């Protein structure tokens, strides 16, 4: 089957990457591992270190410590080789206001031997980009489209997208996702998406990397996360309130406790039963709930964060 990835091929690999700015550790010992040919969702709150990481990967900033490789080339030392094969859509989609998209294409294509003029044709038509209007006069959505156009026509092996959906209406976004699947992922190229739009990331991502305060909290296949992470709701008196690496207490109200269990949820539920608690539900979690749970650990959640208390429990107690 053509879909089996080459096992030793990673698109992005970093080892204990650190980036400090005065007073702040923006990236703190980050060890990323992004396989080739997948869609990798890089998630985190504002200020979590996503943009700093991306800037290091692209050579815009220099890491304080640690090193990494992109597409097999060392960051820093072989940066030009990386840039030849990487397309980047930055968060602030600014370009030269005086140039039209057509001129921007003309400017950009000279840098890339794998540039595809047919791709420019196809995508400019699909996205309905006004090719002869100065960039400064384009709406936010159109600006994003121009950026996407330039990135997609580059023939890059790796697409690094920072908030690629800014200003895109649902129709265009849908088209874009379709293109990502057909022209990028299906061709064995890698997509690295950094975004807040969890639903878009969840739609297309194979892998998830969750970063918070510069540290990688979680990196795994999304499917595996979904098949192993469970929300265990239980009622009882002597329920565990402390946390272990695999179990997080999400909420507690009276004698009700809600846990996020990362592994072996059934065993955990069985253990609780053995201790005399009533396990009401062991339910799967969507990405949004997992994200919120892992990133808001310090604050005790109010009910309504990760779903309400299921009806079955209340009825069994009445």
């Amino acid at each position, binding site marked *: *089957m053509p879909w089996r990835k080459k096992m030793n091929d990673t698109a992005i690999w970093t080892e204990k990457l650190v980036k400090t700015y005065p007073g702040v550790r923006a990236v703190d010992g980050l060890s990323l591992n992004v396989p080739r040919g997948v869609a990798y969702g890089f998630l985190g709150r504002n200020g979590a270190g996503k943009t700093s990481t991306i800037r290091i990967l692209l050579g815009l900033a220099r890491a304080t410590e640690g090193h990494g490789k992109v597409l097999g080339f060392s960051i820093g030392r072989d940066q030009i080789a990386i840039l030849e094969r990487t397309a980047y859509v930055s968060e602030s989609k600014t370009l030269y206001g005086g140039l039209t998209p057509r001129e921007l294409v003309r400017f950009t294509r000279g840098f890339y031997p794998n540039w595809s003029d047919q791709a420019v044709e196809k995508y400019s038509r699909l996205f309905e980009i006004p090719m002869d209007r100065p960039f400064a006069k384009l709406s936010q959505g159109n600006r994003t489209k121009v950026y996407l156009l330039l990135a997609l026509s580059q023939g890059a092996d790796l697409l690094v997208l920072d908030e690629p959906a800014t200003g895109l209406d649902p129709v265009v976004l849908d088209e874009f996702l*379709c293109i990502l*699947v057909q022209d990028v992922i299906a061709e064995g190229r890698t997509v690295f998406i950094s975004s807040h739009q969890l*639903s878009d990331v969840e739609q297309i991502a*194979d892998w998830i990397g969750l970063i918070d305060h510069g540290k990688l909290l979680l990196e795994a296949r999304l499917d*595996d996360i979904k098949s192993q992470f469970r929300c265990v709701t239980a009622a009882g008196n002597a329920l565990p309130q402390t946390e272990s690496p695999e179990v997080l207490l999400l909420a507690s109200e009276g004698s009700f406790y809600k846990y996020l269990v990362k592994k072996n949820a059934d065993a955990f539920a069985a253990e609780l039963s053995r201790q005399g608690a009533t396990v009401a539900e062991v339910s799967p979690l*969507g990405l949004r709930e997992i994200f919120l749970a892992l990133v808001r650990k310090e604050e005790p959640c109010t009910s309504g964060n990760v779903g309400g208390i299921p009806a079955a429990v209340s009825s069994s107690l009445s």
Partner: protein
Amino acid sequence: MTRGSQKSASRAKRKGEAKKVLDKSTVAVYQYSMLLHVNTASGVPTYLQIETQVKHYIAAGALTPGDALPSVRQLASDLRISTNTVARAYQNLERDGILRTVPGGRTYVGENPGSFLKAERVRRLRPYARQIAVEGTQLRLDPREIMELVQQELDALEEENERYSNLDRKAR
């Protein structure tokens, strides 16, 4: 609307032929792309959703042995999900003998019942049976009620089977 069916339709128009050029496999692909759907926001892994649905449609008779499934690329593109997810689902189903991929690349529904011995098939079903037994007991249902439930589901599948075979007959 798969590219396949569009291309063959326009080809026919160009040739000026009145007869329908859509053959059975193209219809099947068209139908089944519409049948399969996923909810990526759910807690159930996407590849599992696809697997479950394919198995369901086979059980319900919507997909019969020899039917062609959409290619990985086509299905992924239609559903707007990663090709890796679809590939994983197809691979798993192939490993279980439910789907079969030919060297040309197309994936078909396999001749499934005959490929395994009865003992093997029973062994595969046992975990699910155990799960029903455990869940049913936990929910304080008695064995008769549990069996009734299972029978109802089997009846519903039978009904679906009927519906799909009627649809098939009309489409020809």
